[in-house]
């Protein structure tokens, strides 16, 4: 125990699964880098770096939202369709005119917030399991999209496309947006009451409730924020694609991919443990794997297999580490 208190006094982070993703990322970069180099390409050439970060951005923004949903002990399977919907809302509202950019952004935020609110209310007030609730909402949006849209619609003005195409050196604007969103959420979790209450809610609903946390509000707010992130991702895709695309979310597999990125980042699916930093690592890891295989021109199917194995393996390692620590803990107690 005394070493523990020392460690705590020195503000050293305890052994935490979320740290695990960074070594993994390093390994991926080194191994991948060498493989690509042997193949005669370069993983770190400007163009490939750009497209790597570029692709990390979209998923990243969604994954950050997904992170807090999972941290709060919930889950959001509707994000993919929210992305598609908001990309359309954005593009159709802008309809190519610079003047409409701001209104469109606002509208997108409102729409996604409302969807998040619905998710939250279904889960808290009607007590529907988050899995089913968000799945159902997703289906509703899907139906609306399939019914209403026969393909890409609307168009965004060039001024708005900067978000999708500009960059500072090798770093795309969109990646900075991702970083900003992540930072904001990280800060929220660390330094606001809501953040503390969120993690408490995910850790143990009853404890949080009995400690005076309004868990329902926390969950609702969490789902709103999660949807907002999806909305922002939708905005980014709209600017990237120059139009709204009714299937971009589903085809991108953002729902399961984001969850994968989150757990890859060491956040526990059961909630209450983990964080945004891990998720950022998870997203980068997936992006690097993607990039490497792109450079090596490995066919996408094989890539998918590897992705599946990596995810399971990573979580298995985390689980192992958790058990080790908890064993040590038990030993200390007895």
């Amino acid at each position, binding site marked *: 125990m005394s070493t523990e208190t020392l460690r*705590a006094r020195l*503000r050293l982070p*305890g052994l935490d699964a979320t740290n695990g993703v960074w070594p993994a990322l390093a390994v991926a970069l080194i191994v991948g880098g060498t493989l690509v180099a042997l193949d005669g390409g370069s993983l770190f050439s400007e163009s490939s770096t750009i497209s790597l970060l570029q692709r990390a951005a979209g998923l990243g923004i969604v994954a950050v939202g997904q992170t807090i949903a999972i941290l709060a002990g919930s889950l959001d399977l509707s994000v993919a369709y929210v992305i598609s919907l908001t990309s359309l809302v954005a593009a159709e509202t802008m309809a190519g005119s610079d003047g409409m950019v701001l209104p469109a952004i606002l509208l997108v935020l409102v729409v996604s917030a409302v969807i998040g609110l619905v998710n939250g209310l279904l889960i808290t007030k009607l007590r529907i399991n988050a899995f089913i609730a968000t799945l159902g909402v997703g289906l509703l949006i899907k139906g609306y999209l399939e019914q209403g849209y026969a393909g890409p619609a609307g168009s965004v003005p060039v001024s708005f496309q900067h978000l999708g195409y500009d960059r500072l050196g090798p770093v795309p604007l969109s990646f900075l947006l991702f970083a900003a969103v992540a930072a904001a959420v990280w800060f929220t979790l660390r330094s606001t009451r809501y953040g503390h209450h969120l993690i408490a809610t995910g850790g143990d609903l009853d*404890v949080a409730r*009995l*400690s*005076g946390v*309004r868990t329902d509000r926390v969950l609702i707010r969490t789902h709103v924020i999660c949807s907002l992130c999806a909305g922002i991702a939708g905005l980014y895709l709209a600017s990237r694609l120059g139009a709204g695309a009714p299937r971009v979310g589903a085809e991108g597999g953002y729902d399961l991919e984001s969850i994968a990125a989150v757990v890859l980042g060491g956040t526990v699916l059961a909630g209450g443990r983990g964080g945004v930093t891990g998720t950022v690592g998870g997203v980068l890891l997936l992006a690097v794997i993607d990039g490497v295989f792109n450079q090596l021109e490995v066919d996408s199917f094989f890539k998918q297999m590897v992705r599946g194995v990596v995810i399971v393996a990573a979580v298995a390692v985390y689980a192992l580490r958790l058990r080790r620590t*908890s064993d040590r803990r038990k030993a200390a*107690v007895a």
Partner: protein
Amino acid sequence: MQPDSDQPLLRMRGVGKAFFGVRVLDDVDLDLHPGQVHALVGENGAGKSTLMKIASGVYQPDAGTLELSGKPVTLPHPRAAQAAGIGIIHQEFNLLPERTVAENVFLGREPLRRGLVDRRAMHARTAELLAGVGETAIAPQTRVGRLGVAQQQVVEIVKALALDARVLIMDEPTASLAEHEVELLYNLVRRLQQRGIGILYVSHRLTEVFDLSGRITVLKDGRRVTTLDTAEATPDTLVRHMVGRELSHYFPERAAPGSAGAARLQLAAAGNGRLRPVDLELRSGEVLGIGGLQGSGRSALARAVFGIDGFRTGQMLLDGVPVRVRSPRQAVRAGIAYVTEDRKGEGLALSQSVLDNALLAQRAVQPRWFARAARTTTVRELLDAVEVHAAGTGQEIRYLSGGNQQKVILARWLAMKPRVLLFDEPTRGIDVGAKAAIHDLIRRLADDGAAVLMISSELPELIGMSDRIVVMRDGAIAGELPAGASEEAVMGLATGAATSTEVPA
């Protein structure tokens, strides 16, 4: 500002509550004055916890009123209760293992600076509070999950203190504490008393009630039986009020000295990560009591025998035959039964029926493809034999009282006809009536030739039940005492006052 003490801090009038149409609380009055320790006693299911939950804003009363210092209040939410200055310490820890001590203590009311959580203030304040209860070993930044049970309890109390509560509700606060920690709690309670805080103290342990309380309210079947000054009360009168019948709780007749049979369970230098090599002999027909403080290795011993955290070194013999028990399953098959101290966590499948819970062991260990009528009938008989009170064997077990749940678990094991039974705190959180019944059962099992090992933190129980008492300390056997040893003797060995040469593992 101190309200004058003739005005009650908390006044409840005609409080009633029903679940699914079942009245669990009916027209209850209660006054709690500043600086008063008001004990709330009654059997399980008497409505104590419901009353507490109403007082702490978890439940809303269907009828009746609450007043705080004369002002009527409604507590729609625990937060409202906190704001009103009502704090509650629950029986089970309400802590988040993943969060730091400070984050736990201030959960739900984190101090803010410019709208943001002020960690520095949070840590400083927590350190103060910890110092206030004489606990300096804990750093506010420590993750609670890394603390020991007793320390977590302290955090739990500090968490309530952080409220500056005027009213403090304590639900079985000593349930998870070892004897020497109880003393620490006593001092705490008295200190709070001096601060003019009113304490609603709920406990099954009458000794505590008499040690601490100034006034006592007795509940039975959701109604208030009586409220009286502790000075006027005696244990017997109190028990009479609680169970509605004269019941001076004496323990069942011990086995005649020397009547114990052959050695059933023998441990030879058996140890593991938490236990130093232990030598122990458990004979058929005897009840062997295991005493010791929390974390002294009592439970670790039982869990090792039962194969939950099995022995790594040494040898274990059943009826003289060496056995290796690596999992509970193997233990059960070897004829060992284990009644856990953590009923909800380890004992019961709460959503399943009484019958399914009672049948679980047989089904798990000797699965059949087609339901066995014979099995079911025997288990039904056993359930009757141990006098389980339930709406029916099909009822979900979550709705039974602790005592009845414990009886179901007993029936479950009896059906396996075990040779060795391990009881870990068999009567924790169980009301007086059921207690006696369970004690009788344990004794009867021993008389029928089973070998019983019984862990208990409750010294009267330990001494009253056991034919021999082994006391543990720091994961090793500190010493053995004969039947009817004195509480002092037990505590002496447990705390190391007797021989303080041992060094912690």
